[in-house]
């Protein structure tokens, strides 16, 4: 423990604007509530003798206490609205407030999913319009709108592939899925959830799929490849069409992980690259808020060969009216969720797309790539880029520049916190030692990027100058310092209990 002599401990533990806050269970009372209701009538119930008599164990708080509780908690969070959030692969861009306003219009926010379709024509029109934008931007003929998140979209795409293979009578034969070593963890997890086995494709020296190695692994037992493009090293797969051709020749499908679509939206149509299925993270590319880990939305575009297997429901337009088809066709693989998908994300994403327009979306991709390359150019003198050449929307560094300093990637990241930044993605992709993946997005100004780069350069110099101890102690200015994750996992405490509080 290091004590700053200029910052003596306070009686309350508070540090001016940083105010400590107990759990709601330690503040509230069982008889207290922050909601007023009219009195209930005195009449017998019809609960069939299954009423709840015991204490539920949930204290309530008055409205001012509730407000203060959550506002104090909020002040312990870092957020895009406070500063750069350069998490590679996460696309932490500005979340426009117009989107929030649109999503809260009662016609969208207070609309029941099972309202008669005549009462929901505008909502169906919105879904259809967003679907049109997504199909046009990707150059794909069909889109399944219901997946609830990126990984759910992967599941959608891979289920469609599984159904197509089954329909060809090759279900028992084609059981392997290939994915690069650098793939997101969701890719192999998704493939296994669909009953496939997963094999890794090695990368080449330039950070891309090794085409020759891929071809060797292809055969008539391969169902699909799952490739992220631009890939998780922030690089465009130069051989992408050769990869697609090779897989197609072998009778397999090409699933593209669309997590990095922000780099090419409005510039390149994935459909032109031979993609058969791709999910789109509306919460990355199209600015719907990440909200502390969700909700997301993962509409999945499909090639003609996979379109018949798409899940229910979907919207069709006929005679100027919109119809929601809720019963899966005979060929469809079924249903991914109750109701129709993440409508609240659809409204926000369409609001963003219409605001930018196609000219703006192209500018977004260009600025995102420009910003990443600017960071790469400014930092490469002191830090070590993992690969040669330009990057796409994110710049990947390894930890060679920290060699023999005693400072590791995690220490470098924690020191960034004290400088007022959210760290970059660390230790991912797995193919790069001590990876640091920086995705600035288009939302950063040059001024903000210059300060960010200056701060990282100064950290790199300090690390090399032998400040390992200070790095190991970081962060010191955050609401909490490094937390003991090992203890948390060894003896998990996953809920508050009164017994524990009494100890």
């Amino acid at each position, binding site marked *: 423990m290091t004590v700053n002599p200029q910052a003596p401990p306070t009686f309350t533990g508070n540090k001016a604007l940083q105010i400590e806050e107990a759990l709601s269970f330690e503040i509230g009372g069982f008889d207290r509530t922050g909601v007023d209701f009219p009195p209930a009538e005195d009449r017998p119930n019809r*609960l069939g003798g299954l009423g709840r008599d015991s204490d539920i164990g949930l204290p309530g708080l008055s409205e001012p206490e509730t407000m203060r509780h959550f506002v104090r908690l909020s002040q312990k969070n870092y957020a895009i609205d406070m500063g750069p959030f350069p998490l590679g692969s996460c696309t932490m861009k500005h979340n426009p407030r117009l989107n929030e306003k649109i999503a809260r219009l009662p016609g969208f926010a207070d609309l029941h999913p*099972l309202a008669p379709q005549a009462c929901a024509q505008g909502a169906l029109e919105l879904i259809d319009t967003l679907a049109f934008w997504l199909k046009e931007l990707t150059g794909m003929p069909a889109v399944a709108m219901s997946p609830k998140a990126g990984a759910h979209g992967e599941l959608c795409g891979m289920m469609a592939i599984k159904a197509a293979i089954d329909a060809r009578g090759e279900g028992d034969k084609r059981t392997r899925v290939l994915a690069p070593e650098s793939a997101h963890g969701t890719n192999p997890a998704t493939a296994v959830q669909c009953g496939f086995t997963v094999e890794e494709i090695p990368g080449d020296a330039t950070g891309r799929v090794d085409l020759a190695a891929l071809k060797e692994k292809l055969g008539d037992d391969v169902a699909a490849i799952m490739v992220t493009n631009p890939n998780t090293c922030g690089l465009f797969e130069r051989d992408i069409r050769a990869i697609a051709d090779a897989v197609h020749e072998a009778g397999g499908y090409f699933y593209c992980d669309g997590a990095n679509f922000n780099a090419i939206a409005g510039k390149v149509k994935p459909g032109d690259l031979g993609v058969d299925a791709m999910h789109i993270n509306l919460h990355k590319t199209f600015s719907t808020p*990440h909200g502390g*880990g969700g*909700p997301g939305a993962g509409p999945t575009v499909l090639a003609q060969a996979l379109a018949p297997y798409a899940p229910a429901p979907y919207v069709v337009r006929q005679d100027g009216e919109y119809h929601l088809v809720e019963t899966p066709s005979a060929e469809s693989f079924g249903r991914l969720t109750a109701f129709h998908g993440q409508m609240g994300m659809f409204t926000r994403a369409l609001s963003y797309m219409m605001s930018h327009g196609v000219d703006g979306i192209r500018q*977004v991709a260009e600025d995102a790539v420009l910003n990443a390359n600017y960071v790469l150019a400014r930092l490469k003198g002191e830090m070590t880029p993992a690969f040669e050449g330009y990057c796409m929307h994110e710049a990947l560094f390894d930890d060679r520049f920290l060699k023999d300093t005693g400072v590791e990637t995690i220490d470098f990241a924690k020191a960034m916190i004290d400088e007022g930044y959210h760290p970059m993605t660390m230790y991912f992709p797995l193919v790069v030692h001590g990876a640091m993946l920086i995705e600035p997005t288009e*939302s950063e100004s040059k001024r903000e990027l210059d300060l960010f780069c200056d701060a990282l350069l100064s950290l790199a110099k300090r690390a090399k100058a032998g400040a390992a101890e200070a790095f190991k102690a970081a962060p010191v200015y955050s609401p909490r310092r490094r937390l003991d994750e090992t203890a948390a996992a060894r003896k998990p405490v996953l809920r508050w209990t009164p017994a524990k509080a009494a100890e």
Partner: protein
Amino acid sequence: MRYLPLNDADRRAMLKTIGAAKIDDLFCDVPNDVLNASFDLPNHMGELGVERALGAMAAKNRAAGDGPFFIGGGAYKHHIPATVDHIIQRSEFLTAYTPYQPEIAQGTLQYLFEFQTQVAALSGMEVANASMYDGSTGCAEAALMARRITKRKKAVLSGGLHPQYAAVTRTNLELLKDEVVAAPVDVSASEDLAAMIDDETACVIVQTPDVFGNIRDLAPIAEAAHAKGALLIAVVTEAVSLGALKSPGEMGADIFVGEGQSLGNGLGFGGPYVGLFATRQKYLRQMPGRLCGETTDVDGKRGFVLTLSTREQHIRRDKATSNICTNSGLCVLAFTIHMTLLGQAGLRKLAILNHQAACKTADALSAINGVEVINKAYFNEFTLRLSKNASDVVDVLAEQGVLAGVPGGRLWPGDPGAENLLIVAASECTTDADIEMYAENLRGAL
């Protein structure tokens, strides 16, 4: 463009630093013939234009608050305190990422910990996760979890399970070539599920109140399942009911799956919602999804972290318990705030008001010729058997300004036995005037 801070002077200066002549030099790895594709899409638009265009779409929909409203079926209209929407729009919550850097994400982590405690208490279970996408996907994940625990490949679905939940579960299980045995549609909660459970059964999935609103006693089913080494998965689509009814944990459920939309989250045409997921301590390591746990920092102060991530895809990849990556963060926050405001005292009152509104509605409607209430025991939702096709009746009443409920034909298309069924939900939002207008119009339509 208002969302982009760079101007052309910035762009030129930055390209110079990079050493590139023009922007497309940075796209040099993209095949030339596909770069700068053309699109049949409009150019950018100001705020006012976007508001007009999307406002016009919103205006074509009939909001639940526009008149008498009685639709449920897995999504429920409740009043949301103003505090909820204010807090979830705070930048620090709205624009944060998954709390992978816990030192600067204690706000998110602490509310996840509070949420897990609330869900465990409501469901009567020992441990809850930090949420699933929604109730239906949680239901499928629960079936997959039961499969991992029991190493068996057969799931039994109650005929009172929401048909879309059943469809999602079936889609996920059949992909793995598992056997899914669905009981026939069971309007009156009279099925004998115990007879369907055998030594091959991994889980039996039962909803209470079921899709028709019947309150089900899970205890005998739990007993029958456990006797055969199977797990009971209890599904609750109306979270407010947990304030009035015996908890799934109390009745012996092994996994609880809930839709948390009713607390803090609007109808939103079906999403985003928030899946509640809880189980027994002994099954913890087979649970899908994120978990938040308590720990201390190097100064000994209490803090929270994401934990047991060795179950998850970003660590375990093809050996993960699920491919799930996101949770429903902001919807969790809305749920937690609403639940914190209510406390158990408020939740009980809310639940009683819901039940009484449903009783009153049922009494008023059942007095009409050609209307029969099917349920004996119900919470805030019940089912009518009408003398006519319920879809037609719903359409007629919608034109008269009353959203009357979910017709059987919507959930079981093509099933003649469901055609005349109408599932009706009431809540604290239902007024006496709403009920009167409903009864009057229904009388006219029959």
